[in-house]
């Protein structure tokens, strides 16, 4: 087990890990690693291939705050704030964030994160593997998915110093003016908030996109619908391009429909600045299918497995890593329950079970509409 236990602080905390690898998390780990990292852990336990990574747990966060010794100062800066007073909110927020991002971390914690990052790089066979660093909110503190979306995400972070720096930035995102205002308004005590930070290998996407384990247009649960473009999935999620569109039979995994679009742009990493940038798709590739059929089939197979694990229709983000060999290069980045069709009461097609005869008669009477 890779769990890294706290050095000592107090008796109760010794059992709570400061860092946790994603594969050690499950959907029940939300208090420890937040919703985002817990769901990645759950996804791994469904059998999906997820880019590896680890989380600084809420205990790790607490240890960070303790070692930084800034709790009292923070409490002082927050004291007497009004959630409507934007000026003061902004000022306090800036001061707190500056404090978090500049104070030294405990050596033990830095070592823990550094060691985990090194292990991650070894696992990915890449020196200083590029990672995505993002805050993972625990539901108690910041209810509502919209708030979680406000948390910071930093992509293409490489090297120990940068990793540590961005972990801090994620922690400090707990003290944005909006987050503070929200807690004030809801009456959450500031000293009880907690955050987890996820550090995850960046999938170096050749192609990426989203898939649904039902047909978004008809609610048909017998298909998996895949939208894909070259590069990172952002272009598909944001709707900047018309993606290639595939409908795959969930039962037999054969491709029922394929619509190849003209894909003018995509996001790729700029090797110079190590950042994701919008790029024009070379003309000769614009109208070709961005996935090979085997990849489409494997994606659908994974989607089927994930749906089975969660027991409900899912909405899944995925990427194909260009650095990995075919057959092992598909990453699942995220899986959420599908909400639109799932929240509808599934209306029966037949009002009540009829004998075959009755059904035939009523169908004959209805006929087949041509126009």
């Amino acid at each position, binding site marked *: 087990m890779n769990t890294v236990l706290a050095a000592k602080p107090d008796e109760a905390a010794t059992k709570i890990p400061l860092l946790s690898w994603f594969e050690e998390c499950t959907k029940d780990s939300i208090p420890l690693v937040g919703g985002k990292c817990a769901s990645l852990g759950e996804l791994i336990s469904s059998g999906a291939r997820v880019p590896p990574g680890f989380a600084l747990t809420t205990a790790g966060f607490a240890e960070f705050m303790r070692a930084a010794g800034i709790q009292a100062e923070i409490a002082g800066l927050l004291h007497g704030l009004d959630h409507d007073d934007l000026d003061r909110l902004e000022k306090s927020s800036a001061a707190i964030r500056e404090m978090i991002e500049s104070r030294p971390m405990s050596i033990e914690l830095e070592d823990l994160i550094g060691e985990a990052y090194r292990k991650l790089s070894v696992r990915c066979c890449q020196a200083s593997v590029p990672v995505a660093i993002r805050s993972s909110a625990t539901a108690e503190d910041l209810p509502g998915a919209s708030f979680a979306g406000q948390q910071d995400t930093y992509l293409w972070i490489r090297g120990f110093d940068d990793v540590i720096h961005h972990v801090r930035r994620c922690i400090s995102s707990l003290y944005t003016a909006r987050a503070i205002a929200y807690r004030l308004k809801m009456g959450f005590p500031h000293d009880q908030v907690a955050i987890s930070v996820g550090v995850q290998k960046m999938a170096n996407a050749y192609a990426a996109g989203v898939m649904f384990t039902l047909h978004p247009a*008809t609610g048909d649960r017998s298909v998996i619908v895949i939208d894909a473009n070259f590069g990172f999935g952002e272009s598909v999620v944001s709707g900047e391009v018309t993606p290639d569109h595939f409908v795959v*039979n969930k039962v037999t995994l054969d491709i029922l429909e394929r619509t190849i679009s003209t894909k003018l742009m995509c996001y790729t990493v700029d090797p110079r600045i190590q950042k994701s940038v919008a790029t024009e798709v070379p003309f000769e590739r614009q109208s070709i299918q961005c996935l090979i059929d085997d990849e489409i089939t494997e994606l659908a197979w994974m989607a089927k497995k994930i749906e089975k694990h969660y027991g409900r229709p899912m909405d899944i983000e995925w990427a194909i890593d260009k650095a990995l060999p075919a057959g092992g290069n598909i990453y699942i980045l995220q899986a959420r329950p599908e909400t639109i069709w799932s929240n509808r009461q599934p209306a*029966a097609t037949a009002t009540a079970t009829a004998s075959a005869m009755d059904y035939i008669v009523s169908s004959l009477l209805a006929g087949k509409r041509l*126009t």
Partner: protein
Amino acid sequence: MQFPNPHDVKAEVIPGTEGWERMYPYQYQFVTDDEERNRYEKETFWFYDGLHYPEPLYPFDTIWDEAWYLALSQFNNRIFQVPPVRGVDHRIINGYVYISPVPVRDPEEIGARVPNFMERAGYYYKNWDDLEAKWKLKMEATIAELEALEIPRLPEVEDLGVVTGGVGESRGYHLIKNYDDLINLGIKCWQYHFEFLNLGYAAYVFFMDFAQKLFPSIPLQRVTQMISGIDVIMYKPDDELKGLAKKAVLLGVDQAVTDHREWEDVKAAVAKSPRGDEWLAAFEKARYPWFNISSGTGWFHTDRSWNDNLGIPLSGIQTYINKIRSGANIDRPMEHVRAERDRITAEYRELIANETDRQQFDELLGCAKTVFPYVENHLFYVEHWFHSVFWNKIRQVAAVMKEHGILDDIEDIWYLRRDEIKQALWDIVTAWATGVKPRGAKTWPVEIEWRKGVMQKFREWRAPPAIGVAPEVIQEPFTIVLWGVTNKSLSDWASVQDVGDPDSITEMKGFAASPGIVEGKARVCFGAEEIRDLMEDEILVAPTTSPSWAPAFAKIKACITDVGGVMSHAAIVCREYGMPAVVGTGYATKVIKSGMLLRVDGSSGHITIVR
């Protein structure tokens, strides 16, 4: 949706065919001299029955069209009283058959028909297996009668036995009578053909329909797969060939069987082998009834049976022997088919959102499985066995007519309507009895010569897929399931009319009938006798396939047809072999040439010609 006016289409007579109407029954004509009928014809939706008639109809072959015109309509309308639809009306333009389901328009009348239908159709569904067993006996008796029927030649002098036996009837009378009997047996056989068929199709259609309501994206091929793996006799002829191939290897006569191309040579070579007699006896045993299988659909006199051309089954046996030699298993993968059927059914069933729908699914699937064997098996009895014998009996009639100078050639008989043949036979027997020359010896050969020219011009004509005015709703189950008349197919038909130069086409679309994608070389085969030219791993392109083509599927890696739906022979067999099929393309054999490189996607129904 508006299609060309039928009377306008008919009015553009192909030069040189003026008067063609006399080749077909008069009630098949679109008319202008009867105001009421003319209005009805104008306001009705007619579609070209390309599924059954890829070519213009020979006057004699119209017999089966009339037979089903009567049989389908009577069962729909007069026997079972399908509530919203009467029969299916027929017309002919330039030899091409147009049909139209006739709706019941008055809602009150529809309501009044419901109880009748429930009682009558309900009786059939409830007692399906018993009635089907009865059907089989009736059908076998009808075929036995047909096989026993003699077409007498007219003697110079009648046998003395006619006198001493006090028979009191001549061969002339028997010729007329037996011709009538022959025709009547054919009509009777088609009565039986439709006894169950519409109900069977209804069960099938509405199971498909329900599955598509549950799963809008479910491919029809998957729905039909849920009813696969049921033993039907349509596969029996092919199984016989496989058995003969195995036996040949077992008896050590396989070399003798594969050494020659012609049956007579094979027969001689096998006879010389030590245990050759045993194999030849097995071969003869398999022929009756299993070689009474047509190399086409059986609907046309041009479709000859294996018994007519033993080279076809021979090439099948040779294919299977070669497979056995290469170590392949030639048995139909039934266990696999059934396991896959059960898996697919269970998975779809699992995806159904609620219990009510799941029970409805089970109920309809059960019903579809009950009717399935009939829907398949009737083909062997009627279209294959009965028809194959029937066409040859008509050829015997033709031989008599030729003897009396009415026909120049036996195969000319198909240019005559069956009532014209009756007239000519009267001409022959009265002339024979009287000792004079039949009048028709001068007139019929001239008329037939003209009709040959007309038929040729008909073949070059392109029948519009639909004419008249499309209705909003179609309720006739055959129209839906067999011809696939839907909004989409209508617009496809409308666009087919625009297809220009066949040499410029690189993409075609048909029904996705069996999944998978392959690339390979095309081999266009117009008849079963051409399948011996197929090479391993070619893609078969055919107008349609029938069970007599079965051995071809052991060689190819995909199949494309002009005509047929997801229940057609090619679709079913390809699913069993796990190879892609695209069926019902409309004109693949016109566009694709042997040797072309094709990409076939049996999951989406797309064909790409790599030019």
